[in-house]
C-alpha cells in the first residue's frame, strides 16, 4: 500500500475506522434508546405502583391491578428448571464429543447439535403441544405423582401442560447452545494437560475430571448464556406453560412468564395504564437478561485469561 493514500482523510483506513466506530456506537445508542423509551412509556405504571409492581401478585387488566411477581417467578423457575435438566445433559454431550467420540462420529454429531439450535422456537412449541405434552401426561406425570406425589412439586391435576412441560421444552432448546459453548471451552484446554495427566497414570475419567475443573468457569459462562436464552424465550413456552399468573409449588400447575404475557396481551392492550404496565414488564425482562448476559461475559473473559 502507498503511504500517501494512508495520510489523506478519505483514505481507506480512515473510512474503515469510521465505519466500524459508527457500527459500534449504533449498538450503544440502541441500548440506551431502548432503556429511555421503555422507562418513558412505563412511567404511568411506575408512578402508580412504584416498587409494589415487582411484588404484586394480581394481574387483572379489567380492574386495573397489575403485579409482576407471578411472572418473574414463572420466568425464573422455568429457566432454572431448564438449566437443571440441560446442564448435565450438555456437559455430557460436549465431553463425549471432545474427549471420547472418534472424529468420524464427533463431526456429524456436532453438526446435528448446531442444527438443533437453528430450529425456530414456534416449531419447538408445536412439537411440545402435540408430542411432549401428551407424552408427559400419559407416561411421566402419573408415574411421578404416584411415586413422589407426597412432595409439593407433583400435586395437582395432570394435564401435560404447565411449569414442568415449559421447563423441559426450554431445556431442549438451550441444550444445543450450552453444548456448543462447552465444546469450545473444552477444546481450549491445552492438550498437554491431558497428556500430563495420562502420563501420570490417570484414567480417562480422572483426566476428564481435571479437564472439566480447568474449564469450570467457561462452563459456567456457557450455562449462564443458556439461562439468558431461556429467560427470553417466548413462543415455545407460551404454548405449553398454561399461562396462569399464579405462584404454585407444584410443577404440574400452570404458570406464566414475563415474555409470554407481553406476547399474549400486547396486541389487545387498550388502556393507557395497561399498556404502561406491559411495557414495565419489558423493562424488568430487559434488566434481568442484561444482568445475566453481563455475568456470562465476565465469566467467559476470566476463563479466556486463565487459559491464555
Amino acid at each position: 500500500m502507498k503511504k500517501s493514500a494512508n495520510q489523506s482523510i478519505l483514505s481507506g483506513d480512515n473510512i474503515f475506522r469510521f465505519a466500524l466506530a459508527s457500527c459500534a456506537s449504533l449498538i450503544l445508542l440502541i441500548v440506551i434508546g431502548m432503556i429511555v423509551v421503555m422507562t418513558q412509556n412505563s412511567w404511568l405504571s411506575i408512578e402508580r405502583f412504584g416498587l409494589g409492581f415487582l411484588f404484586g401478585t394480581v394481574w387483572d387488566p379489567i380492574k386495573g391491578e397489575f403485579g409482576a411477581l407471578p411472572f418473574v417467578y414463572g420466568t425464573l423457575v422455568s429457566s432454572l428448571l431448564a438449566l437443571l435438566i440441560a446442564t448435565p445433559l450438555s456437559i455430557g454431550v460436549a465431553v463425549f464429543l471432545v474427549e471420547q467420540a472418534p472424529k468420524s462420529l464427533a463431526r456429524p454429531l456436532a453438526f446435528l447439535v448446531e442444527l438443533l439450535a437453528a430450529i425456530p422456537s414456534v416449531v419447538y412449541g408445536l412439537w411440545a403441544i402435540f408430542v411432549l405434552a401428551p407424552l408427559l401426561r400419559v407416561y411421566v406425570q402419573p408415574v411421578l405423582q404416584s411415586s413422589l406425589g407426597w412432595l409439593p412439586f407433583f400435586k395437582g391435576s395432570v394435564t401435560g401442560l404447565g411449569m414442568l412441560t415449559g421447563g423441559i421444552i426450554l431445556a431442549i432448546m438451550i441444550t444445543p447452545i450450552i453444548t456448543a459453548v462447552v465444546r469450545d471451552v473444552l477444546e481450549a484446554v491445552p492438550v498437554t494437560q491431558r497428556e500430563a495427566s495420562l502420563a501420570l497414570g490417570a484414567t480417562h475419567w480422572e483426566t476428564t475430571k481435571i479437564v472439566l475443573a480447568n474449564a469450570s468457569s467457561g462452563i459456567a459462562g456457557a450455562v449462564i448464556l443458556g439461562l439468558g436464552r431461556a429467560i427470553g424465550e417466548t413462543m415455545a413456552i407460551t404454548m405449553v406453560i398454561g399461562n396462569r399468573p399464579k405462584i404454585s409449588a407444584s410443577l404440574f400447575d400452570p404458570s406464566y412468564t414475563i415474555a409470554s404475557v407481553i406476547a399474549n396481551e400486547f396486541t389487545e392492550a387498550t388502556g393507557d395504564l395497561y399498556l404502561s404496565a406491559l411495557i414495565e414488564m419489558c423493562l424488568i425482562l430487559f434488566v434481568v437478561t442484561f444482568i445475566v448476559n453481563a455475568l456470562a461475559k465476565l465469566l467467559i473473559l476470566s476463563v479466556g485469561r486463565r487459559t491464555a
Partner: protein
Amino acid sequence: MASSKTSYFLTTVLIIGLAILPACFSGRQGKGNVVKMQGAGSSFISPLMQKWVHEFGFLNPDVKIDYQSIGSGGGIKQTKEKTIQFGATDVAMSDEDLKSAPGEIIHIPVILGAVVLTYNLEQVKVPIRFSPETIVDIFLGKITRWDDDRIKADNPGVELPDVNLIVVHRSDGSGTSAVFTNYLSKVSPEWKQKVGEGTSPSFPVGLGGKGNEGVTGQVKQTPNTIGYVELAYAVKNGMPVAEIKNSAGKFIVPSFESVTSAAAETLNDTPEDLRVSITNAAGADAYPISSYVYVIIYKNQPEEFIRKTLIDFLTWGINEGQKHARPLYYAPLPEGMVKRASAKIALVSGGTTPAGTLAAPSR
C-alpha cells in the same frame, strides 16, 4: 480481493435500494387513478375481510384495499391515530374511547360471530347442555368434576364420567374473551363483581391457550377439558359444541340461524349508534353468546376518493358481501340491520373535521 469487495458493496447497495424502493412508490394516492386504502383490526374478521378485499378488488380494479389483522384493540388505536382509513373490532368502542378520538367515529356492523363452548369428553356422544348458571360456576372454579350435580341437572339421562374438569381459556387479549365475559357478566352478578368483562379477563381457574387455535389445540389434546372458541374453529376442527340455554329457557345449538336470530331479536333495542351487545338476547331461537363485528370509520371523510371508496366498499360488504359469510363460518346480518347499517353509511360526508386542522386521513 478487489472484485469481491466491490461485489459486496454492490450487493449492499442493491439490498438497501430494494428496501427503500417500495417506499418511493407507496402513498395513499398512487399514480393513475388507483385508490389505496388501509384497514386494520379484528383478527376474527380477517378471513372474511381478505375475501371481501379480493372480491371487491376484482369488481373495482382501480381500488386497492389492504387489511391487516392486528387485533381489535390495535384497530381501535390505529383508527384513533388516523393511521388507517378504517378499523375493525369485535367489541364496540367504549364511550371514553369515542370521546378521546379526534373526530366523530361511526360503527357499521358488518357480520356476526358466535362464541361456543367446546369440550373433550370421549365417553359422552350426545351434545352436552349447559345452563348459564352452570357455565358461570365452571369458569369460576366452583364446578371441578364432570359428574357435578349441576351439570347432571342440565343433562338428564346423560352418563357423565367421574373425572376432573379442566377449564381452558384464552391467554391473549381477544374479542372472543370480551364477548364471552360480557355474556357471563349479564347472566351472573357474581361474575360481574368478581371477574368482570374485557379482552383480558383474569380467570380464577384454568389453563390459558394462545389464540383460538391455542385453546382448540389444548382442548383437543387434553381429555376432560372445556373451553370457549369462535364457532368457526370448533366446526373446522370437528369438535363437539355445547347447547346453551338462552333467556327463553330453550337449549340452543349455535348455528348461523340461531346467531342471526339473536341479532334480529335485539333490533328493536339497538340504539341509534348501533353499538349493542346481543349476548343473552331474548327470543326462543336466539343463541345467547353472539356478537356483531364492527367496521369503525370517521363520519367526516374530506378526501373524495377515500370517501367514495369507503362507502362503496362497506355498502357492497353488507349487501353482496354477506353471501361470502357462511362458507367462512360467519353468520350474516339480519335484514333489519342491513337497512340500519346502510342508513349509517349514508351519513358519511365530506364536511370538515371538528378538529379543523386535521386532514383525515393523515398518512
